């Protein structure tokens, strides 16, 4: 029998991954061994410490460009940048998830398996939320980081499942409106399972085509065969379905509004920021490393997808009456803008895309943070009519939300402008004029619902039952401040982060 040789592993390069997964594993042990009353106090610092440590580890290996673990992982510029973005956004997400001051016991239900509406469900409404969410979050974030670094199809699939499964669960854990939350989770899970199946089908076909799982091998095989090969074509198509589903691109976006609305708001924020980032990290690698040299027959299809995404997201956002659904559609349209950067298929495009993802992530997290604060007796008041006159009641938060809305609308001196500019100019550089024109039209349409919210907040008379804005706890305040500083900072002085993205824009392999 042949000796098994373990491939050498560059532990320093994957230390950030190990730290996040480690935090998750320790979190599971905490659930098992620490008394219930203490778990929250142990879990939150543990997870935050794990993420901060991962961030430090990432900074210390920032110059690494290696392929490790037998070529399964590529710790290169994009991987490190995106992992850094994920950890930073993850920290903000965890801050929102850990908030317990705004709602007694936090946004999560204590015991998800208790049937909604029963006596025992009513009894648990005063109990503190489940602390399982912290290890779940850690695994989701770890999976996303792995997804961005995965250098072959199998690792990518494993990472996809590692980050998807905890998300399905997290979606179902809302404290209020539990049936809506569970419905969201089931929809997300079933459609997600379908898309994973498509992804896997694609992996199998591509393996059948190339005889290898690695992106580099795939590219070499594809360069030899040309794009006419049916296996290759079908493989790419199937793989794309899986990836586009996670990125919520039209026509695989249908789940997004329902899930965003039903999931607990901090989780929605994390999905809008982190999942989107991870999905596009994977898309970038697949399209720039895996299929880069293929004759671009499939490009028109992807351009059509990008255009449809931008337009559908924007047009549908116009009619929304629920702030979470509005943000969901806006996130769909934003996926279209990001995809514009991907389709530039250049290092400039990669840099722009990565910058966009990070900038958008901070803004969207801050926006959802504000959503968690606008409450009435029934929990979050997400219907837009309830936001009327909020500017009079709580000028500070209305002002803050206005800045975020302006950033979404792409008004200059916010990160929304610089990031849109980054992807659109990359697309222009690659002669994708149509995409840019559609992108700008879509931005103009999308500005309408954003500004409508602003107008509503300031120019409408507060109704008798206009909800109050809860005073945020330390965690939410911190998340808000980080989000706002990033939104304005990346708009006014985008230079440093853009340069970082530019330096990190070349894939290895």
């Amino acid at each position, binding site marked *: 029998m042949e000796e098994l040789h373990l491939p050498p592993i560059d532990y320093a390069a994957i230390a950030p991954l190990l730290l996040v997964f480690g935090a998750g594993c320790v979190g599971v042990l905490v659930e098992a061994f620490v008394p219930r009353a203490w778990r929250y106090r142990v879990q939150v610092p543990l997870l935050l410490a794990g993420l901060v440590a991962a961030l430090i580890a990432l900074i210390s290996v920032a110059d690494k460009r290696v392929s490790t673990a037998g070529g399964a992982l590529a710790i290169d510029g994009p991987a490190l940048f995106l992992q850094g973005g994920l950890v930073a956004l993850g920290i903000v997400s965890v801050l929102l998830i850990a908030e317990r001051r705004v709602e007694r016991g936090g946004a999560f239900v204590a015991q998800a398996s208790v*049937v909604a509406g029963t006596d025992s469900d009513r009894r648990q409404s005063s109990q503190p939320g489940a602390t399982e969410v912290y290890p779940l979050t850690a695994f989701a974030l770890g999976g996303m980081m792995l997804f961005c670094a995965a250098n072959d199809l199998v690792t990518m699939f494993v990472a996809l499942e590692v980050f998807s499964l905890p998300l399905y669960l997290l979606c179902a854990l809302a404290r209020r409106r539990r049936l809506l939350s569970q419905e969201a989770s089931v929809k997300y899970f079933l*459609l997600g399972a379908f898309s994973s199946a498509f992804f896997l089908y694609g992996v199998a076909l591509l393996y059948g085509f190339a005889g290898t799982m690695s992106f580099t091998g795939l590219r070499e095989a594809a360069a030899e065969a040309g794009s006419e090969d049916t296996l290759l074509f079908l493989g790419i198509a199937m793989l794309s379905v899986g990836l586009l589903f996670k990125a919520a691109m039209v026509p695989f976006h249908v789940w997004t509004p329902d899930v965003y609305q039903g999931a607990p708001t901090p989780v929605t924020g994390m999905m809008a920021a982190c999942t989107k980032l991870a999905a596009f990290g994977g898309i970038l690698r697949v399209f720039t490393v895996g299929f880069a040299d293929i004759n671009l027959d499939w490009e028109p299809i992807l351009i059509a997808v990008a255009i449809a995404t931008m337009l559908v997201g924007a047009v549908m956002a116009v009619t929304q009456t629920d702030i979470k659904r509005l943000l969901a559609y806006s996130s769909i349209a934003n996926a279209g803008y990001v995809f514009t950067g991907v389709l530039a298929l250049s290092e400039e495009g990669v840099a722009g895309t990565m910058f966009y993802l990070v900038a958008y992530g901070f803004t969207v997290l801050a926006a959802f943070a504000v959503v968690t604060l606008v409450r009435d007796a029934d929990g979050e008041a997400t219907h837009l009519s309830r936001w009327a006159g909020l500017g009079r009641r709580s000028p500070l938060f209305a002002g803050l939300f206005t800045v975020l809305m302006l950033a979404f*609308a792409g*008004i200059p001196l916010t990160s929304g402008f610089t990031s849109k500019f980054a992807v659109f100019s990359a697309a222009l550089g690659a002669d994708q004029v149509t995409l840019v024109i559609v992108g700008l039209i879509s931005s103009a349409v999308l500005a309408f619902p954003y500004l409508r919210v602003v107008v509503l907040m300031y120019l*409408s008379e507060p109704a008798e039952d206009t909800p109050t804005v809860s005073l945020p706890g330390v965690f939410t305040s911190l998340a808000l401040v980080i989000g706002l500083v990033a939104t304005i900072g990346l708009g006014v002085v985008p230079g440093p982060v853009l340069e970082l993205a530019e330096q990190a824009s070349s894939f290895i392999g």
Partner: protein
Amino acid sequence: MPAPAPLPTTGWSGRGELGVAVVLGLHVLIAAACAVTARYWGSRVFALGALAPAVGFGWLLTTIPDVLTGRERYALWQWAPTLQLQISLRLDGLALLLGLLVTGIGALVLLYATRYFQHRAHGLGRIAAVLVLFAGSMLALVLADNVLALYVAWELTTVCSFLLIGDDGQQREERRAAGRALLVTTGAGFALLLGLLLLAEVAGTYRIARILDDPPDGGWVTVAVILILIGAAAKSAQIPFQPWLPAAMVAPTPISAYLHAAAMVKAGVYLVARLAPAFAEVMPWRPVVLTVGVATMLLGGWRALTQTDLKRLLAFGTIAQLGFLLALMGAGTQTAALAGATMLLAHALFKATLFLTVGIIDHGAGTRDLRQLSGVARRAPLLAVTAALACVSMAGLPPTVGYLGKEAAFQAFLEPGTGHRWVLIGLVTGSTLTIAYTLRFWWGAFGNRPGVPVRMERPPVSFVAPVALIAATGVALGLAPAATDALTARHAYTHPHGETGYHLELWHGLGAPLYLALLTLVAGAVIHLLRDQIPTWRARLPSVPRATRIQDSLAVAVMVGARAVTTRTQVGSLPTYLMVILTVVAVGPGLTLVLGGEGPIEPRLWDSPPQAILAIGVTITVAGVVMVHRRLIAVLLLSAVGYLVAGLFVLHGAPDLALVQVLVETLTLLVFVLVLRRMPPGVRPTAPSLWAPRAVVAVLAGLFVTIATLTVSANHAPSPATQDYLRLAPEAGGPNVVNVIVTEFRALDTLGEITVLAIAATGVASLILVSHRTGGVPRRETIAWRSDNIPRTRLLPAAHQQAPGRRTLLLEAITRVIHPSMLVVASYLLLVGLHRPGGGFAAGLVVGLGMVLRRLAGGSRELWEITPVPPGVLLGTGLFLTAGYGLAGLLWTGDPLSGAVYTVDLGPLGHLELATSLIFEAGIAVIVTGLVLDILRTLGAYDVPTSPAEAVNAERSAR
């Protein structure tokens, strides 16, 4: 006079760059300071704010000698070099003119605001800070030499404007209108951005000076020009965007005076003036600009005649003047540009004066309604004179700058070759209306109205002084036409067309312009005298759709359309969502697959006729699954599909596969039955209208998968590993390759998989039981109604515990007979696994099936009665066996999971080859048994409630 060919990138002497940086930076700093100090200083904070534009004004004054002699200033900073985003500024004649207005009037308005806001307590910091920021943005806008910098400043002014308008909205309608203002200008802002980007891309540079030097042409330029004009028209309140401007008048007066008269609304005119030298000849430019400008002028003037609110009167007057300016600036000749620049100067001065005057009257008299004002002139004579000076300028009478501009304007369209006689007629009519509403304004504000009480308080001189200063400037510039000419001609000469050498003069001699001016004066005065008739004239006019209404109905149409799309596509139904995804997959790649590529292989229809029969059976059964409405039947049919597929496996010569398939299918079915007991029996039937689309999508998806499978099979080649496995299997234990792979070649994988299986079983069990934490599992002792009198059998000991009605004697009897045999079969499958179909997995499944049978026959207590150990122990034992086997191999031979084969002579039964891997197989069997037991016990333990109502009932009965 075009700029020199190689454009310098830095300041003229270094001073320019520094100066402009200091000025712009100062605006930001002072804005921040205002926001902070307003709390302590009250309205005096505006004086601090005035410092920023005042410094800017001073700085611009120092540059006049350089700029007017052609030495323009440039500055360039990198903003985000990676994006080629840079801030480049250019100070030329036009920028200087606008800059002087923006800073000069800005400083005076802010000074005025210290008085205006004296009695107000809240929001001062915000207003002051935003006003100063606005002044800075506006200055940056006119200085910007990069299309993106220009756009950035443009949007900043929009945002500032909104922040200032949204301040004091009192009435619902007005607030809605202010909201509309933001939407209209922002939406048009995107058009502008698109236009600017297109222009820059076609020109190959983002610097405006370069674009103007070497203007591109082509179809894209036409598109760009249209888009830019849309942006400019919206910003400058031109038809059809004009309604936002009167609506914006809800803002406090200093803000209206500055943003909506003197500064921001000029941005659109500025942009047109900036681009006209290069693009006036591009096709839609001149007709659009002239038509829109003249029409706006007429509409604004006409509407101003019927206003009773002085501020709204001025707002419509502003619209009219903006139309005038647009026509002049966009016409593209030197004289027109000269007139435009002069009118721009004049308008900023007189309109700011008049707005501020209205503010003072509003403060002093408490109303702006001209029907309720009387005797204001007597109480505030200085104010009346100031306003009169501005009105003279507005009416275009000498010796004011307004007169210079108006005369030049008439001259511009009188010049031979311009060929726009109708424009001239429009402008004369517009000027007539201007004179009429000017008279209406002054008489309305200052005239005596018999019977109306005089309520005006005498305004302090310091309140009127800044206003008077602005008005006096207008007269002074009129009295010094040479100076005005110097300021404005610099811009006019950048136009390549229509060099006539016309200069501003107070007296050009008798000529057509003068006669036209006299005509407008007389006609205007007549209209004013007939002012009471105007409402009746107006009533006689055919009613035209109001722009407000058009905009609103457009917005409604968009909403309705989007809502229709949303309700159609976003129904929240999972099947619909799935249909979308499947359709795309089937149609997208499917079409490509059919149309292009190699196409599928020619399929062999069947190897033997029974295959065809089975396949038809599968198809029919599947159709049945879709059609039935009862869950149980659907599940049964689904299992039938599984059995039929197993049959296909047998026919294809894969009995081991078939065996596993049958076992798994049976087990799944039974578990399904256990679960379905708790669910409502039927599913809601699909609405008939959905039948067809769903059927189509399903068939499409099926076709796609079929074709894809056939195509892919064409490319199939057995991998080298397959052949190696086939070759090596006998050596490793036996000819059953599948089992040898499981227990030998890939034993480590198997170990991992069964570990996962064990964990999954535990997880499933704990999830199902988790809501019954308090109850725990039933113990034998707790079964109250158990009677020891009834003799117990070893098989089905719990059967008699069931309610008599629920017992199935036939099933009990069969179970008693079959169950022992099943155990024998299981042992057999385990032992022969390496050679024949079977193996640990199959053995475990058969034992599990036996348990299911007993569960069904013996009731839910049966499994608790018969199993000596809990399932967890079984799972653990299985894991121990498999992992221990691996470790033993490691100890014995040094390789984990290695084994040996021994042959045992069983006499008449023949030989049995026993591999040590049998231990491994046994472990698998135990784990599978444990899994089945675990699931059965947990599913069968309780009647888990499924609906809230049931749950409530269950809890009640428990109590």
